[in-house]
């Protein structure tokens, strides 16, 4: 028993020394839990609030205003009135607002009359591309409509069924339509970052980088040479996911395929260059894998809008999502799959994605060491 304890103590002491002398492992062990608790604590808010809905009140009666007040009072919906039918449609289709509510003319008069032939009607059109949000909109609307029934008096004066909800882009709120286009973002980001994160670190670890650097090859040539085959691999993967999404999961692709391919190219270049940058900075395969997982996975799930709504995040984290390419590619991917979004509607995601990729490529080349200085 004494020998057992002595041996365990010796091994434990050795491990302890490894940990405290390796700043990266120590940082992972001590800082990561704080980062995770801090991020998730603020970000995971499944209670959607302040969903932006544009409202076209064609009745302008006391009843319609009362109904709209009930909608906004809970804090779940932020209502923005519009008067032009064209502007309201455009806002919805350009993803500026996730919903458009139309209160029909004579809404108040029909409630007061209680005529079965002419019921008071409300129509809600919601963006079904974001399945989770669309489901919550439906639930809130049902709750508010039932509340309205109590206030206005139930059928024939007002009936919750008279609030007709229609989901654009994903009428049946099919989960797969929502998840698969987003999954391509997660998979490609993780794969691309991970693949290249190992390449430079591997060369440093096995000593071949020293030999490579002694030849006339230039840093940007090494970076470009390392990017090229992995670009082909990632591009093949994204096409494979696309084919599976369309043929196996039967997800409609309504947008421009050229736009989709362009976004894929920009996104893959950025993700690969980020992997190279991680590899250049860490020079160790173990550290590179840990970094790549942290940077490839966490933002993909947390900061991209894949699971947690960006609009619900605190301002700081909402701002943070801007620097993650997953957010922008996911927006483009979902929009092109489920709606026929034009380039102008996707200009902001495209610009942000391009800026990210350019910065990553430039940083990789700049940070690539031309020597073996420690």
């Amino acid at each position, binding site marked *: 028993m004494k020998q057992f304890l002595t041996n365990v103590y010796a091994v434990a002491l050795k491990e302890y020394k490894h940990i405290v002398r390796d700043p990266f492992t120590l940082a992972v062990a001590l800082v990561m839990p704080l980062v995770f608790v801090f991020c998730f604590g603020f970000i995971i808010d499944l209670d959607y609030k302040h969903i932006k809905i544009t409202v076209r009140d064609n009745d302008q009666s006391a009843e319609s205003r009362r109904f709209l007040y009930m909608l906004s009072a809970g804090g779940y919906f932020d209502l923005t009135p519009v008067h032009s039918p064209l502007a309201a449609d455009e806002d919805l289709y350009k993803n500026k607002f996730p919903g458009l509510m139309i209160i029909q003319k004579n809404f108040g008069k029909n409630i007061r009359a209680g005529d079965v032939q002419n019921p008071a009607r409300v129509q809600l059109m919601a963006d079904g591309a974001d399945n989770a949000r669309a489901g919550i909109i439906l639930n809130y609307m049902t709750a508010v409509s039932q509340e309205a029934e109590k206030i206005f008096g139930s059928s024939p004066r007002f009936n919750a069924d008279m609030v007709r909800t229609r989901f654009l882009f994903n009428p049946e709120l099919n989960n797969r339509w929502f998840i698969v286009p987003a999954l391509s973002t997660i998979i490609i980001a993780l794969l691309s970052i991970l693949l290249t994160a190992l390449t430079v670190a591997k060369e440093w670890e096995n000593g071949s980088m020293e*030999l490579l650097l*002694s030849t006339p090859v230039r840093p940007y040539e090494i970076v470009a040479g390392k990017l090229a085959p992995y670009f082909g691999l990632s591009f093949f993967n994204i096409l494979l996911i696309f084919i599976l999404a369309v043929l196996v999961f039967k997800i409609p692709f309504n947008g421009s395929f050229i736009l989709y391919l362009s976004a894929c190219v920009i996104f893959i270049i950025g993700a690969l260059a980020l992997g190279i940058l991680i590899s250049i900075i860490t020079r160790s395969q173990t550290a590179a894998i840990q970094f790549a997982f942290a940077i490839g996975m966490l933002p993909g799930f947390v900061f991209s809008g894949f699971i947690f709504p960006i609009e619900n995040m605190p301002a700081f984290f909402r701002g943070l999502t801007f620097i993650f390419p997953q957010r922008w590619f996911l927006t483009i991917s979902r929009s092109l799959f489920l709606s026929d979004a034009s380039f102008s509607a996707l200009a902001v995601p495209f610009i942000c994605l391009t800026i990210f990729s350019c910065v990553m490529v430039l940083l990789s080349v700049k940070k690539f060491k031309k020597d073996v200085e420690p």
Partner: protein
Amino acid sequence: MNNVTVTAVVKHMKKTPALSGVSMTFGGGVINGIVGPNGAGKTTLLRCMANLLTPESGTIAFETGGQKLTPAQAKKFIAYFPQEPSLYPDLSCAEHMQFFRALYSLNAADFKKRSDGLFAATGMGRFRARKAGALSGGMYKKLGLMCVLLNNPEFLFLDEPTIGVDPVSRRELWELIHRFSAGGMNVVMSTSYMDEALRCGRVFVLNSGRLIAAGAPHKIMEDFKLKKFEDIFLK
């Protein structure tokens, strides 16, 4: 004549002094040996000469074909083979040669001539298809030499090329190095084996980053009244 002149070079690795103002000239025509125990500064000096490290002070000047060059300018004339295993275990000998051909931008005719010459000179012709990871220690070093020599360099820097190599392969490597040196290449190699110091035409003895002796090995032994070369580190 191809010369490398190192003047008052100072270099720290992190905070440890690796080279403390060393000066020496490596002339062609003989094998130049940088000799010293582990931590003497041999690798740091070779890396500075191969433009992989930048000295904090001092200069390194190359002279070839009547022109004077800095390490950066001389890069295309230099072949450097590091001490650590630095080849790709999953690439064959032929694939390694093709890779280095591209890095050195050789045309097909030059590549074929040099590649065939190197395979013949090293006796590696039978192993063209063998992967580097499956080569013995001696063959591995020969392949490394072949790769860097494809460029037909004026200067060949070898960092402890015979370390971890069996006696037969070691002798073969030495024969190769002698042949390259006799062909006009300025060969500078480091070694911590004192018997190898005696095989060099000229040696530069480093200890703790300082040059403690330079010259023909037998002359150094006479001057320092040494029975064995390694006794110089006890003086």
